[in-house]
């Protein structure tokens, strides 16, 4: 508990059952600034659903962070102790004291113990949780929250367009989509062209925000409603050429997109496909340790009018699993600060998945959980879109 005297060197009594590191805090005089009219302190964090939350801090009202009550801020995170740390706002200064936590409390990457200031804009790390100290004008915050709500609405709209999983038939498809805090422009889908052909695609618009999401939706609608005039949708090179004509970056806010588009013949299991600016889709085959990449090399869509787009063909087999995913799946920064590449992610695919063991209903969700667990705390930098098609 933070004592009433701001220059005290006493420690918070440890109440946690974990490892305790008792280090005497240096005696320091804390300068208390005069409160600023209309400015408010918040702790900003991401909840389990990925939504951004703000906890308002009030002067001399302690806020405890832990894994269970009586903490005011509870995170069900195995790396957060029962009662982990405590915050106290004095005038315009926010102080944090570790409560003898197992894994420590960190401010801007530095471990802290007792009565340490958390600067404006400072980042508090508690287990896997990242909480940012915001000190800002209430009116400005209201405007910012309106923008956040717009982003959330854009995200919900995109999600409402995504297809239902295919749980019956010769090809069963499931997916997992987790928008980033900034909302990206991922769009993916699948549908039958006729009784013998199944189309699968995944597009990723450059950039983030509502503009990228709107562009993604326009591309998505062109594909799912088959509204590209004069195109044989069973021919991937034709589809990509027409998309390139239809969505030039000059007349679409400078945005381009990458795409993987494939048409599977359900009778022969031959798949025709083309990728533009995007990494391969991959096939995992029972009994074969190496993944089979399905890739063609074409320029991103919208960058240059009149470009040719080449397609390719592969033979799939019963038991194969086809993985389509966006770069947000593998372009992560890990907890030790390393930037991942696709080769870091590939070994995760094609591994056995058991909902009873892994707790995720689908392999796509299981892959998300694994990536999420390896990435640095906080929301992922980009949308996570993973589609898994099983040939049964």
């Amino acid at each position: 508990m933070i004592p009433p005297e701001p220059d005290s060197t006493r420690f918070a009594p440890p109440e946690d059952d974990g490892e305790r590191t008792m280090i005497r805090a240096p005696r320091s005089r804390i300068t208390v600034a005069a409160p600023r009219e209309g400015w408010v302190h918040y702790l900003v964090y991401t909840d389990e659903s990925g939504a951004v939350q703000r906890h308002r801090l009030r002067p001399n009202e302690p806020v405890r962070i832990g894994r269970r009550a009586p903490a005011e801020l509870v995170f069900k995170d195995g790396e957060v102790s029962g009662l982990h740390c405590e915050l106290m706002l004095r005038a315009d200064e926010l102080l944090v004291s570790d409560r003898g936590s197992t894994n420590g409390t960190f401010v801007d990457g530095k471990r802290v113990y007792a009565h340490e200031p958390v600067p404006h804009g400072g980042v508090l790390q508690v287990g896997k949780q990242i909480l940012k100290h915001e000190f800002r004008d209430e009116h400005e915050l209201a405007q910012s929250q309106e923008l956040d709500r717009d982003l959330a609405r854009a995200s919900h709209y995109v999600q409402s367009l995504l297809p239902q999983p295919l749980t019956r038939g010769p090809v069963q498809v499931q997916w997992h989509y987790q928008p980033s805090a900034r909302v990206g422009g991922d769009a993916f889908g699948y549908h039958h062209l006729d009784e013998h052909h199944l189309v699968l695609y995944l597009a990723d618009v450059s950039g983030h925000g509502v503009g990228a999401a709107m562009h993604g939706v326009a591309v998505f609608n062109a594909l799912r409603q088959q509204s590209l005039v004069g195109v044989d949708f069973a021919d991937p090179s034709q589809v990509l050429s027409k998309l390139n004509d239809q969505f030039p970056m000059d007349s679409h806010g400078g945005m381009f997109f990458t795409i993987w588009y494939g048409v599977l013949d359900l009778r022969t299991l031959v798949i025709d496909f083309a990728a533009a600016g995007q990494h391969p889709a991959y096939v995992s085959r029972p009994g074969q340790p190496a993944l089979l990449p399905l890739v063609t090399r074409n320029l991103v869509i919208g960058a240059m009018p009149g470009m040719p787009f080449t397609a390719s063909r592969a033979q799939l087999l019963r038991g194969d699993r086809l993985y389509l995913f966006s770069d947000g799946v593998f372009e992560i920064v890990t907890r030790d600060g390393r930037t991942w590449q696709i080769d870091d992610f590939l070994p995760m695919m094609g591994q056995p998945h058991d909902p009873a063991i892994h707790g995720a209903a689908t392999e796509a969700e299981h892959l998300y959980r694994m990536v999420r667990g390896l990435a640095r705390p906080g929301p992922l930098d980009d949308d996570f879109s993973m589609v898994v098609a099983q040939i049964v």
Partner: protein
Amino acid sequence: MDMSVEELAGGALCVALQGRLDTVGVDQVEAKFKDAVLGTDRDAAIDLGAVSFLASMGVRLIIATARAQKARGRLLVLFGAKAQVQSTLQMVALDQIIPVLPDREQATARLAG
């Protein structure tokens, strides 16, 4: 994201970028970068040797600048990309519209030729 500008033998511009060319990096450098390349009527080479990561926003900046150069009859080339950035350039097939060269010497020769 940092940026420095110098002149290549033959008078072309050389813009060296340093850091992550992602959304944040592009925000930091875009205005300066465009001003440097498009603010003068010269061919230009972009040195990617110190770029550690190239995201879609970085690709977008390069494409937009190359197209603006082309529209006024000037050339833009890229050189020096390390393995990870080179892999991204390959994947987005940028070499289909912009020369991607291994080093400064070849970039200089290409612009001189």
